[in-house]
């Protein structure tokens, strides 16, 4: 029974942990502008993160080594250093966007401007990471993130035009007034919000800390193959609500208030309370994960002692890196850049950086020296190669599309 409970809690946590500010922004914006014409991208993204996380989880469970440790070992110090700088910058970028998301959620409940919340949220986050047992934190925020289900449920109260939605889903492409370039720009943003590198850093580092053995692969795979798809459903919730409320009247989504308003229209103040709790939990949970992942990437590259379960004094460099990353995230927000725009840029640069860590993991997952007979099977390699092509294509197309469409403008 205890194992079953472990699995269900793990899945629920993955659900809450999957959704972050990137999913909220890219989901609502694409829903407002294209209806649910991008729904296939969420499916591709969810399958992608399942393939990627399963490989990383298996590599970690068998070899006992986390992602960034292997990245340096496989690419050599110089190339891995470039990889580290890229991945670390993206992770801290994401941390800033998540903190901004938390502050925006709090602003909707209070009349204080979001910037006043940022330092307080950062302090709260650091205290949580420093003092509270991570297991409980992950459970609380993972489960609270489930409140986002209100979006998936609420959409039926909004009287959706199912025929139009089905038409959009089955005819992926730009609606009149939009171009293919903006369509593909939003597709890449959505794909990047589903396949976020920091999630795999966090997932595999957690595996090392909890000393996964091959026997734990069952629980790890359950988390991946059930948690992520459910998380994808929540991300779809934002898209379909925007598609029902904003798309028909040609409106766009530029603020968090607009992204969550549909829940209020559908279920009133209860809907708003739930959706804001969900957004707060999802973004705060993601801020914790990105904060730790920033520390993980640097510590694992240099070989320092690291870990959320290790007492701070025996991992001084790791904890200092997490603290510094937090301060950089806050500084990024205090430049008064709009967190929603910061998230848009973060998604594009995440797409560019994704191959840097995806390729080494795909290679190590085929290394008999490490995994013995648990190397990639034919299916895993087939999916791995398919997503290699997708990931590299997205990385190559991301920046040109961003410049050409002036960030989807």
């Amino acid at each position, binding site marked *: 029974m205890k194992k079953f409970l472990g699995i269900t809690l793990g899945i629920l946590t993955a659900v809450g942990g999957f959704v972050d500010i990137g999913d909220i922004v890219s989901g609502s914006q694409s829903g407002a502008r294209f209806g649910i014409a991008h729904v296939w991208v969420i499916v591709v993204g969810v399958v992608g993160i399942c393939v990627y996380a399963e490989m990383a989880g298996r590599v970690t469970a068998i070899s006992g080594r986390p992602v960034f*440790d292997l990245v340096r070992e496989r690419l050599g*110090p110089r190339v891995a250093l470039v990889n580290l700088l890229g991945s670390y910058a993206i992770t801290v970028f994401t941390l800033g966007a998540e903190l901004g998301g938390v502050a925006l959620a709090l602003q909707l409940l209070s009349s204080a401007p979001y910037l006043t919340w940022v330092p307080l949220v950062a302090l709260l986050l650091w205290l949580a990471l420093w003092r509270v047992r991570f297991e409980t934190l992950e459970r609380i925020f993972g489960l609270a993130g489930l409140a986002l289900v209100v979006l998936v449920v609420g959409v039926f109260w909004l009287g959706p035009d199912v025929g139009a939605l089905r038409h959009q889903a089955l005819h992926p492409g730009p609606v009149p007034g939009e171009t293919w370039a903006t369509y593909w720009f939003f597709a890449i943003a959505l794909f990047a919000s589903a396949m976020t590198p920091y999630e795999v850093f966090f997932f595999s580092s957690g595996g090392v800390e909890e000393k996964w053995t091959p026997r734990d692969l069952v629980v790890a795979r359950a988390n991946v193959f059930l948690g992520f798809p459910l998380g994808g459903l929540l991300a779809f919730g934002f898209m379909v609500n925007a598609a029902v409320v904003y798309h028909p009247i040609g409106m766009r989504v530029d603020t968090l208030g607009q992204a969550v308003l549909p829940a209020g229209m559908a279920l009133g103040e209860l809907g708003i309370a739930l959706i804001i709790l969900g957004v707060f939990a999802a973004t705060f949970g993601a801020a914790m994960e990105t904060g730790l992942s920033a520390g993980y990437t640097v510590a694992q*590259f240099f070989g*320092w002692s690291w870990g959320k379960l290790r*007492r701070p004094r025996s991992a*001084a460099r790791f904890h200092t890196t997490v603290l510094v990353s937090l301060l950089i995230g806050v500084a990024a927000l205090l430049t008064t850049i709009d967190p929603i725009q910061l998230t848009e840029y973060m998604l594009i640069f995440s797409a560019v950086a994704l191959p840097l860590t995806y390729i080494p993991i795909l290679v190590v997952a085929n290394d008999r020296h490490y995994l013995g007979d648990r190397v990639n099977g034919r299916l895993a390699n087939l999916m791995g190669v398919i997503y290699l092509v997708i990931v590299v294509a997205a990385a190559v197309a991301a920046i040109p599309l961003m410049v050409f469409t002036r960030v989807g403008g």
Partner: protein
Amino acid sequence: MALLIGFDLLDRQILDRDGFPVGKVDDVELDDELRVVALLTGQRAFGRRIGGVLGRWIGAAAARLAEKEPRRIPYDAVDHVDAAVHLSVRAELLPPPALEAWLDQHLIRRIPGAGE
């Protein structure tokens, strides 16, 4: 099976007896008969190895931070090598990493709750 220094040792994680991370193999020391005598870890060895402007800068930064010379782990302390280099000794017996000690001393130790 032949041991490849670059592939099997360099950039591999060193763990002590209890699995506590000691550092990465930033370089390997050979004696005059080209026998592997020690593993070198630390920012100075890393800086010197990647070379170039960045490498010199990392090495200089480490030198300023009281890391007089790279931490030297005699090769006979190595128990076996698989996905990581496992040592047969505990981390406390090895020279302490300068950056870790410095940060612990000046920052982490002062924050309440750092001990548990």
